[in-house]
Protein backbone atom coordinates (compact mmCIF):
# COMPACT_ATOMS: atom_id res chain seq x y z
CA UNK A 1 0.00 0.00 0.00
CA UNK A 2 2.73 2.51 0.95
CA UNK A 3 6.44 2.78 0.57
CA UNK A 4 8.40 2.46 3.82
CA UNK A 5 9.14 6.20 4.05
CA UNK A 6 5.56 7.24 3.52
CA UNK A 7 4.51 4.41 5.85
CA UNK A 8 6.52 6.03 8.61
CA UNK A 9 5.41 9.53 7.73
CA UNK A 10 1.79 8.52 7.87
CA UNK A 11 2.30 6.45 10.99
CA UNK A 12 4.00 9.36 12.69
CA UNK A 13 1.06 11.59 11.93
CA UNK A 14 -1.49 9.07 13.11
CA UNK A 15 0.42 8.09 16.25
CA UNK A 16 0.65 11.75 17.11
CA UNK A 17 -3.09 12.19 16.75
CA UNK A 18 -3.91 8.97 18.58
CA UNK A 19 -1.66 9.97 21.43
CA UNK A 20 -3.19 13.42 21.70
CA UNK A 21 -6.58 11.88 22.34
CA UNK A 22 -5.41 9.25 24.83
CA UNK A 23 -6.07 9.80 28.53
CA UNK A 24 -2.86 10.48 30.51
CA UNK A 25 -2.05 8.14 33.43
CA UNK A 26 -2.52 9.45 36.97
CA UNK A 27 0.97 8.66 38.24
CA UNK A 28 4.35 9.32 36.73
CA UNK A 29 7.79 7.84 37.13
CA UNK A 30 9.87 9.99 39.49
CA UNK A 31 12.81 11.93 38.14
CA UNK A 32 15.38 9.81 39.91
CA UNK A 33 13.96 6.66 38.33
CA UNK A 34 14.16 8.30 34.91
CA UNK A 35 17.74 9.32 35.65
CA UNK A 36 18.58 5.74 36.64
CA UNK A 37 16.81 4.43 33.53
CA UNK A 38 18.63 6.82 31.20
CA UNK A 39 21.94 5.96 32.83
CA UNK A 40 21.24 2.23 32.40
CA UNK A 41 21.42 1.68 36.15
CA UNK A 42 18.18 -0.23 36.65
CA UNK A 43 17.83 -3.98 36.89
CA UNK A 44 16.02 -5.77 34.06
CA UNK A 45 12.80 -6.01 36.07
CA UNK A 46 12.95 -2.35 37.02
CA UNK A 47 13.69 -1.33 33.45
CA UNK A 48 10.78 -3.38 32.12
CA UNK A 49 8.47 -1.68 34.60
CA UNK A 50 9.63 1.74 33.46
CA UNK A 51 9.25 0.76 29.79
CA UNK A 52 5.69 -0.44 30.48
CA UNK A 53 4.92 2.95 32.00
CA UNK A 54 6.60 4.90 29.20
CA UNK A 55 4.61 3.00 26.58
CA UNK A 56 1.42 4.75 27.68
CA UNK A 57 2.60 7.89 29.44
CA UNK A 58 3.40 10.62 26.96
CA UNK A 59 4.76 12.99 29.58
CA UNK A 60 7.28 10.54 31.01
CA UNK A 61 8.23 9.25 27.57
CA UNK A 62 8.91 12.77 26.33
CA UNK A 63 10.93 13.63 29.41
CA UNK A 64 12.98 10.46 28.97
CA UNK A 65 13.41 11.24 25.27
CA UNK A 66 14.78 14.69 26.13
CA UNK A 67 17.18 13.16 28.64
CA UNK A 68 18.36 10.59 26.09
CA UNK A 69 18.81 13.29 23.46
CA UNK A 70 20.80 15.32 25.95
CA UNK A 71 22.96 12.28 26.60
CA UNK A 72 23.37 11.76 22.87
CA UNK A 73 24.84 15.23 22.69
CA UNK A 74 27.91 13.59 24.22
CA UNK A 75 27.53 14.99 27.67
CA UNK A 76 26.48 11.92 29.57
CA UNK A 77 27.70 11.45 33.08
CA UNK A 78 29.52 8.39 34.36
CA UNK A 79 27.52 5.47 35.54
CA UNK A 80 27.05 4.60 39.14
CA UNK A 81 28.65 1.22 39.63
CA UNK A 82 27.07 0.27 42.88
CA UNK A 83 23.31 -0.11 42.84
CA UNK A 84 21.68 1.33 45.92
CA UNK A 85 18.13 1.33 44.69
CA UNK A 86 16.56 -1.81 46.05
CA UNK A 87 13.45 -1.37 48.12
CA UNK A 88 13.18 2.38 47.79
CA UNK A 89 10.50 4.74 46.64
CA UNK A 90 6.78 4.90 46.93
CA UNK A 91 4.80 2.30 45.09
CA UNK A 92 3.28 2.67 41.69
CA UNK A 93 0.29 0.66 40.62
CA UNK A 94 2.14 -0.88 37.69
CA UNK A 95 5.69 -0.78 38.96
CA UNK A 96 7.70 -2.94 41.30
CA UNK A 97 8.45 -1.58 44.75
CA UNK A 98 11.90 -0.27 43.88
CA UNK A 99 10.65 2.07 41.14
CA UNK A 100 9.42 5.35 42.52
CA UNK A 101 6.59 7.63 41.45
CA UNK A 102 6.32 11.36 40.93
CA UNK A 103 5.08 13.43 42.68
CA UNK A 104 6.19 11.83 45.89
CA UNK A 105 5.72 13.56 49.19
CA UNK A 106 8.66 13.05 51.49
CA UNK A 107 7.96 10.89 54.52
CA UNK A 108 10.12 10.26 57.62
CA UNK A 109 10.83 6.87 56.07
CA UNK A 110 12.45 8.59 53.12
CA UNK A 111 14.70 10.56 55.44
CA UNK A 112 15.86 7.33 56.98
CA UNK A 113 16.40 5.91 53.50
CA UNK A 114 18.59 8.89 52.68
CA UNK A 115 20.67 8.47 55.83
CA UNK A 116 20.85 4.72 55.31
CA UNK A 117 22.27 5.49 51.89
CA UNK A 118 24.86 7.71 53.54
CA UNK A 119 25.96 4.90 55.79
CA UNK A 120 26.02 2.25 53.06
CA UNK A 121 28.09 4.41 50.73
CA UNK A 122 30.44 5.79 53.36
CA UNK A 123 32.68 2.75 53.37
CA UNK A 124 33.03 2.72 49.60
CA UNK A 125 33.67 6.43 49.45
CA UNK A 126 37.06 6.46 51.08
CA UNK A 127 38.49 4.02 48.57
CA UNK A 128 36.94 5.69 45.55
CA UNK A 129 37.43 9.40 46.13
CA UNK A 130 41.13 9.40 45.43
CA UNK A 131 40.70 7.70 42.07
CA UNK A 132 37.70 9.80 41.13
CA UNK A 133 39.48 13.05 41.93
CA UNK A 134 42.32 12.01 39.64
CA UNK A 135 39.87 11.12 36.88
CA UNK A 136 37.91 14.33 37.11
CA UNK A 137 40.86 16.67 37.37
CA UNK A 138 41.29 17.17 33.63
CA UNK A 139 38.29 15.61 31.97
CA UNK A 140 34.62 14.92 32.45
CA UNK A 141 31.49 16.94 31.92
CA UNK A 142 32.84 20.29 33.06
CA UNK A 143 35.58 20.16 30.47
CA UNK A 144 33.09 19.01 27.84
CA UNK A 145 30.67 21.78 28.73
CA UNK A 146 33.39 24.42 28.79
CA UNK A 147 34.69 23.20 25.44
CA UNK A 148 31.25 23.13 23.87
CA UNK A 149 30.30 26.59 25.09
CA UNK A 150 33.62 28.15 24.15
CA UNK A 151 33.51 26.52 20.74
CA UNK A 152 30.02 27.90 20.12
CA UNK A 153 31.26 31.38 20.96
CA UNK A 154 34.27 30.94 18.71
CA UNK A 155 32.14 29.81 15.80
CA UNK A 156 29.91 32.84 16.29
CA UNK A 157 32.97 35.07 16.11
CA UNK A 158 32.68 36.05 19.80
CA UNK A 159 36.36 35.55 20.52
CA UNK A 160 36.54 37.54 23.75
CA UNK A 161 33.59 35.58 25.20
CA UNK A 162 35.20 32.30 24.15
CA UNK A 163 38.39 33.29 25.93
CA UNK A 164 36.48 34.33 29.04
CA UNK A 165 34.74 30.94 29.21
CA UNK A 166 38.04 29.10 28.83
CA UNK A 167 39.68 31.28 31.47
CA UNK A 168 36.81 30.62 33.89
CA UNK A 169 37.08 26.88 33.32
CA UNK A 170 40.83 26.93 33.86
CA UNK A 171 40.42 28.94 37.01
CA UNK A 172 38.28 26.06 38.27
CA UNK A 173 41.06 23.63 37.47
CA UNK A 174 39.68 22.38 34.15
CA UNK A 175 42.44 21.98 31.57
CA UNK A 176 42.69 20.13 28.28
CA UNK A 177 44.59 20.23 25.03
CA UNK A 178 41.49 21.08 23.08
CA UNK A 179 40.74 24.03 25.37
CA UNK A 180 44.29 25.21 24.67
CA UNK A 181 43.61 24.88 20.97
CA UNK A 182 40.35 26.83 21.22
CA UNK A 183 42.02 29.58 23.17
CA UNK A 184 44.75 29.82 20.55
CA UNK A 185 42.12 30.19 17.85
CA UNK A 186 40.32 32.86 19.85
CA UNK A 187 43.62 34.69 20.41
CA UNK A 188 44.18 34.81 16.67
CA UNK A 189 40.57 35.66 15.95
CA UNK A 190 40.02 32.82 13.50
CA UNK A 191 38.52 29.35 14.02
CA UNK A 192 40.88 26.57 12.92
CA UNK A 193 38.18 25.01 10.79
CA UNK A 194 38.24 27.99 8.48
CA UNK A 195 41.77 29.34 8.85
CA UNK A 196 43.04 27.56 5.75
CA UNK A 197 39.86 28.34 3.85
CA UNK A 198 40.02 32.04 4.66
CA UNK A 199 43.74 32.47 4.61
CA UNK A 200 45.13 29.59 2.59
CA UNK A 201 46.59 31.41 -0.40
CA UNK A 202 50.25 32.05 -0.86
CA UNK A 203 49.39 35.74 -0.96
CA UNK A 204 48.23 35.41 2.66
CA UNK A 205 51.81 34.52 3.52
CA UNK A 206 53.44 37.42 1.66
CA UNK A 207 54.05 35.67 -1.69
CA UNK A 208 52.72 37.76 -4.54
CA UNK A 209 51.92 36.82 -8.11
CA UNK A 210 54.85 36.74 -10.46
CA UNK A 211 57.42 37.37 -7.79
CA UNK A 212 58.37 36.54 -4.29
CA UNK A 213 57.96 38.39 -1.01
CA UNK A 214 56.34 41.74 -1.64
CA UNK A 215 54.45 42.91 1.37
CA UNK A 216 55.10 44.08 4.85
CA UNK A 217 54.50 40.91 6.92
CA UNK A 218 52.67 42.90 9.58
CA UNK A 219 49.97 43.79 7.09
CA UNK A 220 49.10 40.13 6.51
CA UNK A 221 45.88 38.70 7.92
CA UNK A 222 45.50 36.88 11.25
CA UNK A 223 48.83 37.91 12.70
CA UNK A 224 47.37 39.18 15.97
CA UNK A 225 47.92 37.15 19.11
CA UNK A 226 50.44 34.89 17.40
CA UNK A 227 52.97 34.72 20.22
CA UNK A 228 50.33 34.01 22.85
CA UNK A 229 48.68 31.44 20.58
CA UNK A 230 52.01 29.74 19.96
CA UNK A 231 52.66 29.61 23.70
CA UNK A 232 49.27 27.97 24.16
CA UNK A 233 49.98 25.31 21.57
CA UNK A 234 53.69 24.75 22.03
CA UNK A 235 53.54 21.79 24.41
CA UNK A 236 50.35 20.21 23.17
CA UNK A 237 51.18 16.77 21.76
CA UNK A 238 48.75 17.27 18.86
CA UNK A 239 46.66 14.33 17.87
CA UNK A 240 43.45 16.03 16.80
CA UNK A 241 43.05 17.23 13.23
CA UNK A 242 41.64 20.59 14.22
CA UNK A 243 44.53 21.28 16.56
CA UNK A 244 47.09 20.25 13.94
CA UNK A 245 45.55 22.44 11.23
CA UNK A 246 45.29 25.32 13.67
CA UNK A 247 48.91 25.04 14.76
CA UNK A 248 50.17 24.34 11.25
CA UNK A 249 48.50 27.49 9.95
CA UNK A 250 49.84 29.50 12.87
CA UNK A 251 53.37 28.28 12.19
CA UNK A 252 53.09 29.08 8.52
CA UNK A 253 52.02 32.59 9.49
CA UNK A 254 55.09 32.81 11.71
CA UNK A 255 57.29 31.52 8.90
CA UNK A 256 58.22 28.45 10.97
CA UNK A 257 57.94 26.08 8.02
CA UNK A 258 59.83 23.14 9.55
CA UNK A 259 57.38 22.91 12.42
CA UNK A 260 54.43 23.49 10.06
CA UNK A 261 55.57 20.62 7.84
CA UNK A 262 55.54 18.30 10.86
CA UNK A 263 52.03 19.41 11.85
CA UNK A 264 50.62 18.93 8.36
CA UNK A 265 52.35 15.56 8.01
CA UNK A 266 50.67 14.46 11.24
CA UNK A 267 47.39 15.93 9.98
CA UNK A 268 47.71 13.90 6.78
CA UNK A 269 47.97 10.73 8.84
CA UNK A 270 44.78 11.70 10.64
CA UNK A 271 42.87 12.76 7.51
CA UNK A 272 44.62 11.81 4.25
CA UNK A 273 41.58 12.78 2.17
CA UNK A 274 41.18 16.29 3.56
CA UNK A 275 41.75 18.98 0.91
CA UNK A 276 42.69 21.47 3.64
CA UNK A 277 45.44 19.18 4.90
CA UNK A 278 46.95 19.07 1.40
CA UNK A 279 46.51 22.79 1.00
CA UNK A 280 48.43 23.38 4.23
CA UNK A 281 51.04 20.81 3.32
CA UNK A 282 51.49 22.41 -0.09
CA UNK A 283 51.89 25.86 1.46
CA UNK A 284 54.52 24.54 3.87
CA UNK A 285 56.39 22.81 1.04
CA UNK A 286 56.28 25.96 -1.13
CA UNK A 287 57.59 28.11 1.68
CA UNK A 288 60.28 25.51 2.24
CA UNK A 289 61.05 25.81 -1.48
CA UNK A 290 60.17 22.19 -2.17
CA UNK A 291 58.19 23.16 -5.26
CA UNK A 292 57.71 19.61 -6.60
CA UNK A 293 56.13 18.55 -3.31
CA UNK A 294 54.08 21.74 -3.24
CA UNK A 295 52.78 21.04 -6.76
CA UNK A 296 51.82 17.51 -5.79
CA UNK A 297 49.90 18.65 -2.72
CA UNK A 298 48.09 21.53 -4.43
CA UNK A 299 47.06 19.15 -7.23
CA UNK A 300 45.80 16.68 -4.65
CA UNK A 301 43.87 19.45 -2.85
CA UNK A 302 42.24 20.37 -6.17
CA UNK A 303 41.35 16.76 -6.90
CA UNK A 304 39.69 16.44 -3.52
CA UNK A 305 37.94 19.80 -3.78
CA UNK A 306 37.75 21.17 -7.34
CA UNK A 307 36.01 24.32 -6.08
CA UNK A 308 38.98 25.34 -3.92
CA UNK A 309 40.23 28.61 -5.43
CA UNK A 310 43.21 28.84 -3.07
CA UNK A 311 44.54 25.49 -4.24
CA UNK A 312 44.19 26.57 -7.91
CA UNK A 313 45.95 29.93 -7.40
CA UNK A 314 48.70 28.32 -5.32
CA UNK A 315 49.17 25.62 -7.95
CA UNK A 316 49.47 28.21 -10.74
CA UNK A 317 52.09 30.10 -8.75
CA UNK A 318 53.96 26.86 -8.04
CA UNK A 319 53.92 25.91 -11.72
CA UNK A 320 55.50 29.26 -12.54
CA UNK A 321 58.15 28.65 -9.91
CA UNK A 322 58.88 25.36 -11.63
CA UNK A 323 59.13 27.04 -15.02
CA UNK A 324 55.93 25.49 -16.36
CA UNK A 325 54.61 28.78 -17.68
CA UNK A 326 52.26 27.29 -20.26
CA UNK A 327 50.52 25.08 -17.70
CA UNK A 328 50.38 28.03 -15.32
CA UNK A 329 48.83 30.24 -18.02
CA UNK A 330 46.12 27.67 -18.71
CA UNK A 331 45.30 27.58 -15.03
CA UNK A 332 45.21 31.40 -14.72
CA UNK A 333 42.77 31.53 -17.64
CA UNK A 334 40.66 28.83 -16.08
CA UNK A 335 40.61 30.83 -12.86
CA UNK A 336 39.42 33.94 -14.68
CA UNK A 337 36.34 31.98 -15.77
CA UNK A 338 35.39 31.44 -12.14
CA UNK A 339 33.86 33.66 -9.52
CA UNK A 340 36.58 35.68 -7.84
CA UNK A 341 36.77 38.78 -5.64
CA UNK A 342 37.15 41.74 -8.00
CA UNK A 343 40.54 42.80 -6.61
CA UNK A 344 41.88 39.29 -7.08
CA UNK A 345 40.46 39.11 -10.60
CA UNK A 346 42.23 42.38 -11.49
CA UNK A 347 45.52 41.11 -10.08
CA UNK A 348 45.27 37.88 -12.07
CA UNK A 349 44.29 39.82 -15.21
CA UNK A 350 47.31 42.08 -14.82
CA UNK A 351 49.54 39.11 -14.21
CA UNK A 352 48.25 37.26 -17.28
CA UNK A 353 48.88 40.41 -19.40
CA UNK A 354 52.45 40.59 -18.07
CA UNK A 355 53.04 36.94 -18.91
CA UNK A 356 51.66 37.41 -22.43
CA UNK A 357 53.78 40.52 -23.01
CA UNK A 358 56.86 38.69 -21.78
CA UNK A 359 56.38 35.92 -24.36
CA UNK A 360 59.20 35.81 -26.92
Amino acid at each position, binding site marked *: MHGSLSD*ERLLKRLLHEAEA*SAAPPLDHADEETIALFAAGELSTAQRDAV*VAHLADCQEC*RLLTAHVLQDQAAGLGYPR*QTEAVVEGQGAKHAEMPAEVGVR*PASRSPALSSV*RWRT*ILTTAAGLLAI*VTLSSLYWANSGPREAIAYREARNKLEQGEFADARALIAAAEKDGVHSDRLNSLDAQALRGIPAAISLERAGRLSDFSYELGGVVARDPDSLPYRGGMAAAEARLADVPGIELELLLNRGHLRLTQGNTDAAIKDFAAAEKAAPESPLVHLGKGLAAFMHEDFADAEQDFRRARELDPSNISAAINLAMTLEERGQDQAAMLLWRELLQRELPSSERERIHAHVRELEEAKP
Partner: protein
Amino acid sequence: MPWNKLMERLQTSTSNSPSSDGDLLLDVTLAQALQLGNSRAAEVFENKYLPLVRATAFRMGGERAVDLVQNFAAELVLPRQTKPPRIAAYQGRTILANWLRVVVIHFCTSHFRHKEAEPMTAEQADEHELPSGQRADFAPCQELVRPLIQESAGQLAAEDRVLIKWLLLDEVPQHQVAASLGIHTGNITRRRQRITSQIWRGVLQAAGKRGQERNAHDCLELILTDGDHSLKQDLGTVLAQVICPESANQGVP
Protein backbone atom coordinates in the same frame (compact mmCIF):
# COMPACT_ATOMS: atom_id res chain seq x y z
CA MET B 1 30.09 17.66 63.56
CA PRO B 2 29.21 21.16 62.30
CA TRP B 3 28.15 21.25 58.66
CA ASN B 4 31.01 23.44 57.49
CA LYS B 5 33.59 21.11 59.00
CA LEU B 6 31.91 18.08 57.48
CA MET B 7 31.85 19.66 54.03
CA GLU B 8 35.47 20.74 54.30
CA ARG B 9 36.54 17.25 55.22
CA LEU B 10 34.51 15.70 52.45
CA GLN B 11 35.62 18.22 49.88
CA THR B 12 39.31 17.96 50.61
CA SER B 13 39.11 14.35 49.55
CA THR B 14 37.15 14.96 46.34
CA SER B 15 37.75 17.15 43.34
CA ASN B 16 35.68 20.27 42.80
CA SER B 17 33.85 18.71 39.90
CA PRO B 18 30.59 16.93 39.17
CA SER B 19 30.00 13.71 40.97
CA SER B 20 31.38 10.34 40.16
CA ASP B 21 30.68 7.09 41.93
CA GLY B 22 32.39 7.94 45.15
CA ASP B 23 30.69 11.29 45.58
CA LEU B 24 27.30 9.83 46.37
CA LEU B 25 27.82 10.40 50.06
CA LEU B 26 28.68 14.02 49.43
CA ASP B 27 25.68 14.40 47.11
CA VAL B 28 23.25 13.03 49.63
CA THR B 29 24.73 15.10 52.41
CA LEU B 30 24.61 18.18 50.26
CA ALA B 31 20.97 17.55 49.33
CA GLN B 32 20.00 17.09 52.96
CA ALA B 33 21.85 20.23 54.00
CA LEU B 34 20.30 22.22 51.15
CA GLN B 35 16.91 21.15 52.33
CA LEU B 36 17.77 22.25 55.85
CA GLY B 37 18.61 25.67 54.43
CA ASN B 38 22.33 25.59 55.17
CA SER B 39 24.01 28.56 53.48
CA ARG B 40 27.34 26.79 53.00
CA ALA B 41 25.50 23.99 51.19
CA ALA B 42 23.88 26.56 48.90
CA GLU B 43 27.31 27.99 48.16
CA VAL B 44 28.73 24.54 47.36
CA PHE B 45 25.76 23.85 45.12
CA GLU B 46 26.20 27.14 43.27
CA ASN B 47 29.88 26.49 42.62
CA LYS B 48 29.70 22.85 41.83
CA TYR B 49 26.37 22.20 40.18
CA LEU B 50 25.02 25.44 38.80
CA PRO B 51 27.30 25.32 35.72
CA LEU B 52 25.81 21.90 34.93
CA VAL B 53 22.32 23.20 35.51
CA ARG B 54 22.93 26.14 33.18
CA ALA B 55 24.54 23.99 30.49
CA THR B 56 21.67 21.50 30.54
CA ALA B 57 19.14 24.33 30.38
CA PHE B 58 21.02 25.92 27.49
CA ARG B 59 20.84 22.71 25.51
CA MET B 60 17.12 22.50 26.20
CA GLY B 61 16.12 26.03 25.34
CA GLY B 62 19.06 28.36 24.78
CA GLU B 63 19.48 31.57 26.72
CA ARG B 64 15.78 31.72 27.62
CA ALA B 65 16.09 28.46 29.50
CA VAL B 66 19.33 29.60 31.16
CA ASP B 67 17.47 32.62 32.50
CA LEU B 68 14.89 30.28 33.99
CA VAL B 69 17.46 28.41 36.06
CA GLN B 70 19.45 31.36 37.38
CA ASN B 71 18.12 30.74 40.88
CA PHE B 72 17.82 27.02 40.63
CA ALA B 73 19.14 26.39 44.13
CA ALA B 74 16.17 28.33 45.48
CA GLU B 75 13.88 26.48 43.07
CA LEU B 76 15.08 23.21 44.58
CA VAL B 77 14.66 24.13 48.24
CA LEU B 78 11.56 26.32 48.32
CA PRO B 79 8.31 24.58 49.24
CA ARG B 80 5.80 24.35 46.39
CA GLN B 81 2.19 25.03 47.39
CA THR B 82 1.04 21.62 48.58
CA LYS B 83 4.22 19.79 47.66
CA PRO B 84 7.53 19.46 49.49
CA PRO B 85 10.60 21.14 47.93
CA ARG B 86 12.03 19.46 44.86
CA ILE B 87 15.26 18.51 46.62
CA ALA B 88 13.27 16.27 48.96
CA ALA B 89 12.66 13.92 46.05
CA TYR B 90 16.37 13.17 45.68
CA GLN B 91 17.00 9.96 47.56
CA GLY B 92 20.59 9.23 46.65
CA ARG B 93 19.80 6.34 44.31
CA THR B 94 21.93 7.91 41.60
CA ILE B 95 24.45 10.71 41.67
CA LEU B 96 23.10 14.23 42.08
CA ALA B 97 24.30 15.31 38.62
CA ASN B 98 22.21 12.60 36.95
CA TRP B 99 19.14 13.51 38.95
CA LEU B 100 19.65 17.23 38.42
CA ARG B 101 19.82 16.82 34.68
CA VAL B 102 16.41 15.17 34.59
CA VAL B 103 14.97 17.77 36.99
CA VAL B 104 16.32 20.66 34.91
CA ILE B 105 15.03 19.17 31.66
CA HIS B 106 11.65 18.53 33.25
CA PHE B 107 11.56 22.03 34.71
CA CYS B 108 12.40 23.68 31.39
CA THR B 109 10.05 21.59 29.26
CA SER B 110 7.17 22.08 31.73
CA HIS B 111 7.80 25.79 31.83
CA PHE B 112 7.83 26.16 28.07
CA ARG B 113 4.77 23.97 27.73
CA HIS B 114 2.75 25.89 30.29
CA LYS B 115 3.94 29.45 29.97
CA GLU B 116 4.31 29.68 26.25
CA ALA B 117 2.89 27.91 23.25
CA GLU B 118 4.49 24.51 22.79
CA PRO B 119 6.50 24.44 19.56
CA MET B 120 4.42 22.89 16.81
CA THR B 121 5.45 19.57 15.37
CA ALA B 122 5.94 19.35 11.62
CA GLU B 123 2.57 17.67 11.33
CA GLN B 124 0.83 20.34 13.33
CA ALA B 125 2.56 23.00 11.28
CA ASP B 126 1.41 21.31 8.08
CA GLU B 127 -2.10 21.17 9.34
CA HIS B 128 -1.90 24.72 10.56
CA GLU B 129 -1.18 25.88 7.05
CA LEU B 130 -4.20 24.18 5.54
CA PRO B 131 -7.32 26.27 5.02
CA SER B 132 -10.06 25.35 7.47
CA GLY B 133 -12.21 23.71 4.80
CA GLN B 134 -9.46 21.30 3.95
CA ARG B 135 -8.87 20.47 7.61
CA ALA B 136 -12.52 19.57 7.88
CA ASP B 137 -12.07 17.09 5.00
CA PHE B 138 -9.72 15.08 7.15
CA ALA B 139 -11.94 14.96 10.19
CA PRO B 140 -14.05 11.93 9.24
CA CYS B 141 -10.94 10.00 8.27
CA GLN B 142 -9.19 10.90 11.48
CA GLU B 143 -12.22 9.80 13.42
CA LEU B 144 -12.15 6.47 11.59
CA VAL B 145 -8.44 5.81 11.76
CA ARG B 146 -7.62 7.07 15.27
CA PRO B 147 -9.27 4.20 17.17
CA LEU B 148 -7.83 1.71 14.69
CA ILE B 149 -4.35 3.02 15.31
CA GLN B 150 -4.92 3.05 19.06
CA GLU B 151 -6.17 -0.51 18.96
CA SER B 152 -3.34 -1.70 16.75
CA ALA B 153 -0.61 0.11 18.68
CA GLY B 154 -2.14 -1.09 21.92
CA GLN B 155 -1.54 -4.67 20.83
CA LEU B 156 2.19 -4.10 20.50
CA ALA B 157 4.55 -5.10 23.29
CA ALA B 158 5.28 -2.16 25.61
CA GLU B 159 8.91 -2.06 24.50
CA ASP B 160 7.86 -1.89 20.83
CA ARG B 161 5.43 0.95 21.58
CA VAL B 162 8.12 2.94 23.34
CA LEU B 163 10.63 2.18 20.62
CA ILE B 164 8.44 3.32 17.73
CA LYS B 165 7.26 6.45 19.55
CA TRP B 166 10.78 7.44 20.52
CA LEU B 167 11.98 6.96 16.98
CA LEU B 168 9.05 8.50 15.11
CA LEU B 169 7.56 11.07 17.46
CA ASP B 170 10.47 12.10 19.66
CA GLU B 171 13.35 11.58 17.23
CA VAL B 172 15.63 9.98 19.78
CA PRO B 173 18.82 8.74 18.08
CA GLN B 174 18.76 5.01 17.35
CA HIS B 175 21.85 4.24 19.39
CA GLN B 176 20.32 5.90 22.46
CA VAL B 177 17.11 3.94 22.01
CA ALA B 178 19.12 0.75 21.72
CA ALA B 179 21.23 1.52 24.78
CA SER B 180 18.30 2.42 27.01
CA LEU B 181 16.29 -0.64 26.01
CA GLY B 182 19.30 -2.92 26.29
CA ILE B 183 19.19 -4.10 22.68
CA HIS B 184 21.82 -4.12 19.96
CA THR B 185 21.89 -1.07 17.67
CA GLY B 186 22.03 -3.34 14.63
CA ASN B 187 18.58 -4.70 15.49
CA ILE B 188 16.85 -1.34 15.64
CA THR B 189 16.21 -0.84 11.91
CA ARG B 190 14.77 -4.32 11.42
CA ARG B 191 12.69 -3.96 14.54
CA ARG B 192 11.40 -0.58 13.43
CA GLN B 193 10.28 -2.06 10.10
CA ARG B 194 8.67 -5.01 11.82
CA ILE B 195 6.73 -2.78 14.22
CA THR B 196 5.57 -0.50 11.39
CA SER B 197 4.23 -3.42 9.35
CA GLN B 198 2.65 -4.88 12.47
CA ILE B 199 0.78 -1.62 13.13
CA TRP B 200 -0.52 -1.40 9.55
CA ARG B 201 -1.59 -5.01 9.61
CA GLY B 202 -3.36 -4.36 12.90
CA VAL B 203 -5.11 -1.27 11.51
CA LEU B 204 -6.44 -3.11 8.49
CA GLN B 205 -7.48 -6.11 10.59
CA ALA B 206 -9.29 -3.86 13.05
CA ALA B 207 -10.95 -2.06 10.14
CA GLY B 208 -11.89 -5.44 8.59
CA LYS B 209 -13.58 -6.49 11.82
CA ARG B 210 -15.74 -3.39 11.52
CA GLY B 211 -16.34 -3.89 7.81
CA GLN B 212 -14.39 -0.75 6.97
CA GLU B 213 -11.17 -2.11 5.51
CA ARG B 214 -11.62 -0.33 2.16
CA ASN B 215 -12.59 2.96 3.80
CA ALA B 216 -9.63 2.75 6.16
CA HIS B 217 -7.31 2.10 3.23
CA ASP B 218 -8.69 5.11 1.35
CA CYS B 219 -8.44 7.25 4.45
CA LEU B 220 -4.79 6.38 4.89
CA GLU B 221 -4.16 7.32 1.27
CA LEU B 222 -6.07 10.57 1.75
CA ILE B 223 -4.17 11.56 4.87
CA LEU B 224 -0.92 10.76 3.09
CA THR B 225 -1.79 12.79 0.00
CA ASP B 226 0.05 16.07 0.14
CA GLY B 227 -0.12 19.01 -2.20
CA ASP B 228 -3.16 18.05 -4.24
CA HIS B 229 -5.82 19.91 -2.30
CA SER B 230 -8.61 19.38 -4.85
CA LEU B 231 -8.03 15.61 -4.72
CA LYS B 232 -8.11 15.77 -0.95
CA GLN B 233 -11.33 17.72 -1.02
CA ASP B 234 -13.02 15.33 -3.44
CA LEU B 235 -11.86 12.25 -1.57
CA GLY B 236 -12.74 13.84 1.71
CA THR B 237 -16.27 14.63 0.67
CA VAL B 238 -16.88 11.15 -0.71
CA LEU B 239 -15.36 9.43 2.28
CA ALA B 240 -17.12 11.64 4.74
CA GLN B 241 -20.45 10.63 3.21
CA VAL B 242 -19.56 6.95 3.25
CA ILE B 243 -17.95 6.78 6.69
CA CYS B 244 -19.74 9.32 8.83
CA PRO B 245 -22.78 10.68 7.05
CA GLU B 246 -23.74 12.84 10.03
CA SER B 247 -20.41 14.57 10.39
CA ALA B 248 -20.23 15.01 6.61
CA ASN B 249 -23.53 16.81 6.60
CA GLN B 250 -22.60 18.98 9.55
CA GLY B 251 -18.88 19.56 9.24
CA VAL B 252 -17.98 19.74 5.56
CA PRO B 253 -19.05 22.90 3.77
